[in-house]
């Protein structure tokens, strides 16, 4: 019955579930709100499963396509579809949403319904970003997701939350508004169409391509975030509640990277080739310089935030190698980073709930009190450092391999991450977990409970599975990536 509208379900089930959660009302019904939210998140994940089971890996065309007129006045359509690039991201998002709901189960006691609803609605909107094939539809989802995120950071965040929320919102809005102008320009250039796939074949002059390249680069670069427009991320991460940090790192950053593949590369191939050096330069700075910045952080969340920027630098680097290995490596890195960063933020959340501090110096000797937690934390720290057999290794390795094919020095600089990444992650781990207990409060900390074990266990399984056998992931994306690169190789100059 719903066979034709799976993507609509994937988008609207979480949103409607969010509305249902809001309807449970005030905090007197907090328990009800939590259960409705969990049910909604699980339902959202279940309706996404047919995307995997029904996915045809033998084609690069859009699948599960839905198309209906939406705003005929501007020739805007409700046009949805996924390929091997977007499908895994939708799944990742639906999956993380379940975790976020569980993670906020006990921690959030204030305005529970609004908190849960914000995450569910945002989840639906993000699915919409990945599924939209119409420029305006994409933009509506892309911008719409800022509203719940703004509230999440601002309402449930830390002491400096207002500053972080404003910075985050205005920063990302700046980028997307210029993108909107570019989209309108494309609309007229393509003869009155907002269809993204039509834009892929629209002929564009070099000047227009260059200008639009920078507009799109700003829009997506801010979201990724790329150096030097990354400064909102550490603030937002530090101030956001645990769930907000998880979603920010695991999902919203991917929206930016996804934009590179859906918009910049296929719509502006000539400018992309011409200006690849620029993106590569920024990516390498992110990898090397931000890695060093992460090293000196005293706040754990900030450290992971900087590490996210460095990891996303790998993603953009891989995309601009213009070969299948690099692009697939970038995509694998995106998914892997989704798992690993989510897990690390959850770990920090576990500690924060007990000690109410994110400062590394307040901890030490955690392993004596929380051995199970220490083991999980170890695994995720290793994955973040790119240890083989964890998912973190696969993507980085693929990107470095592809960079070697292009230019040895790219690969050389990129490979420094293996050193810096290990340094900042493991050094933090050492200071937090090992050593003697110096802070008396650490003595009182209890080990992870069943709910937390469930959260971390599921993520650990994902990290290991992807590290040991990444083939299913690369199979799904392979043809789409090849097709994308074929597009990028063709000049669109008039």
């Amino acid at each position, binding site marked *: 019955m719903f066979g034709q509208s799976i993507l609509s379900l994937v988008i609207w089930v979480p949103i409607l579930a969010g509305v249902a959660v809001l309807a449970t009302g*005030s905090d007197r019904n907090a328990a009800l709100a939590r259960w409705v939210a969990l049910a909604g998140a699980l339902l959202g994940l279940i309706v996404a499963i047919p995307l995997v089971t029904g996915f045809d890996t033998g084609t690069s065309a859009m699948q599960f396509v839905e198309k209906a007129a*939406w*705003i*005929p*006045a*501007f020739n805007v359509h409700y046009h949805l579809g996924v390929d091997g690039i977007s499908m895994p991201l939708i799944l990742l998002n639906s999956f993380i949403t379940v975790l976020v709901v569980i993670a906020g189960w006990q921690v959030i006691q204030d*305005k529970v319904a*609004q908190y849960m609803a914000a995450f569910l609605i945002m989840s639906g909107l993000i699915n919409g970003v990945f599924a939209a094939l119409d420029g*305006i539809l994409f*933009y*509506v989802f892309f*911008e*719409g997701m*800022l*509203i719940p995120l*703004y*509230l999440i950071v*601002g*309402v449930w965040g830390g002491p400096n*939350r*207002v500053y972080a*929320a*404003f910075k985050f*919102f*205005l920063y990302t*809005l*700046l980028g997307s*508004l*210029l993108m*909107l*102008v570019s989209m*309108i*320009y494309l*609309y*007229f250039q393509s003869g009155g169409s907002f269809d993204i796939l039509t834009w892929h074949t629209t002929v564009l002059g070099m000047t227009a391509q260059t200008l639009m390249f920078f507009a799109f680069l700003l829009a997506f670069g801010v979201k990724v975030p790329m150096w030097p427009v990354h400064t909102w991320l550490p603030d937002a991460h530090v101030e956001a509640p645990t769930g907000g940090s998880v979603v920010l790192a695991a999902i919203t950053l991917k929206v930016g990277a996804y934009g590179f593949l859906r918009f910049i590369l296929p719509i502006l191939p000539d400018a992309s080739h011409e200006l690849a050096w620029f993106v590569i330069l920024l990516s390498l700075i992110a990898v090397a310089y931000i890695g060093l910045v992460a090293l000196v952080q005293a706040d754990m969340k900030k450290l992971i935030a900087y590490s996210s920027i460095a990891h996303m630098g790998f993603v953009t680097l891989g995309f601009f190698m213009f070969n299948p290995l690099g692009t697939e490596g970038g995509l694998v890195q995106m998914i892997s980073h989704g798992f690993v960063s989510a897990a690390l933020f959850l770990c920090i959340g576990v500690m924060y709930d007990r000690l109410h501090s994110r400062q590394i110096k307040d901890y030490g000797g955690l392993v004596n009190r929380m051995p199970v937690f220490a083991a999980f934390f170890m695994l995720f720290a290793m994955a973040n450092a790119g240890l083989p057999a964890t998912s973190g290794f696969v993507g980085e390795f693929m990107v470095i391999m592809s960079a070697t094919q292009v230019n040895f020095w790219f690969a050389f600089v990129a490979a420094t991450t293996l050193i810096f990444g290990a340094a900042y992650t493991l050094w933090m781990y050492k200071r937090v977990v090992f050593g003697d207990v110096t802070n008396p409060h650490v003595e009182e900390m209890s080990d992870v409970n069943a709910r937390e074990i469930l959260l971390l266990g599921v993520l650990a399984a994902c990290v290991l599975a992807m590290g040991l056998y990444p083939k299913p992931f690369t199979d799904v994306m392979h043809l789409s990536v090849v097709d994308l690169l074929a597009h990028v190789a063709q000049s669109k100059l008039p």
Partner: protein
Amino acid sequence: MSVFLHHFAPALPEIFVLAMVSLILVIDAAVDDSKRYLAYALSLITLAGAAFLTVRDFSTMPVLALGGLFIDDPLSDVLKLFLYLTVAVVLVYSRDYLTERGLYKGEFFVLALFAQLGMMVMVSASHFLTLYLGLELLSLSLYAMVALQRDSSVATEAAMKYFVLGALASGMLLYGMSMVYGVTGSLSLGDMAIALQDGTDLHVPLVFGIVFIVAGLAFKLGAVPFHMWVPDVYHGAPTAMTLFIGSAPKIAAFAFVVRILGQGLESQVAEWRDMLVILAVLSMGVGNLAAIAQTNLKRMFAYSTISHMGFMLLGILAGTQNGYGSAMFYVLVYALMSLGGFGMILLLSRAGFESDQLEDFKGLNRRSPWLAFLMLLLMFSMAGVPPTVGFYAKLAVLQAVVEIGYVWLAVAAVLFSLVGAFYYLRIVKLMYFDTPHDTTPITTSPDTRFLLSANGLAVLALGILPQPLMAVCVHAIGASF
């Protein structure tokens, strides 16, 4: 009789409103304060009746009447319907506020309906004379409305300022009209357009006239650098009057500008486009930047109005049907949002408390999550963030501007709207992130609350499905030009 009817039939809604206002004036003088609701009820009935007449005689093509002074076309009918709706909502929102302040008198309703009549005449005018008559009827009613609170020195000052500057603007407008009349030999917009079609030898006087006309229009719209009266009037007037001034007259002003520039001076688009570009850029810039510095919400909305009018001008300066349609969509959406925004101030105010400071919105989410949510929708809509309808309004005018090749103007517009996003976000921040310092329970009458809910949700609903309203605008412009 039939000749008479034939001649006057297109103006039937106007005649009906005029008759009803006179009736209300007489009835109201005869009843005491306990039956004041009569004027209120009769005003709403008047609007409903006029709406019925407009719908019944909905025109499919332009019809000239009253010897070419008056035009009845789809554009005017659609705009009139929105005017009835807007004014009716204003009356409902204002009721409690006016009662608490002793302003709930027949004068208010009579003035509001006279203003309504003036706007209807403006919307349907096809002649400089009728345009001016409608404008003056509207303006005089508004001056009096602002001054209605006699014992408030702020309101009196605002009224005085409004009157002086408004009279100056009218003078400029008349002067410009006389120059154009001298060049074309006609006051009728249609004849004027024909006379100017093949160019004219009197180019300098014509442009001279256009400059004055545009300056006059800019005064009425509140576009920079002719905006000085807007913040003072919005701030000084009782909120109910601000609500009125900030909503319906903008729709009429749109019609006024489109009739003169788009229909009468259509062939001179190259002349007035550059003037409007300057007005639009300055309005968006000054409006948005000055709004940041305000602590009074009414004043902030005043500056935000200035920037919104700048945005609306973007659509008009495109000088295409697409552009006029976008501007129309923009102004209707703006009226909807403005109604909601001022309606919220009215709803939160009570006897002796205006609720027009930014501070008063602190922690609204804790006091009333539903009202905070509605205000959130309105603020994001004004900022132009999807999925609210404000986004499509911006999209529409931006695409009209890009279509004529003014990409730089679109870029400037979005950058200014980024500035604007800041102060709208600040309201959301106050409502959601801060704790309330005022914990008085919010008491509202059910009809106001219901209407405000509908108003806020309409912003979201039209954001998810903008097509119907957009189609109405496209059709109205397409069938009238």
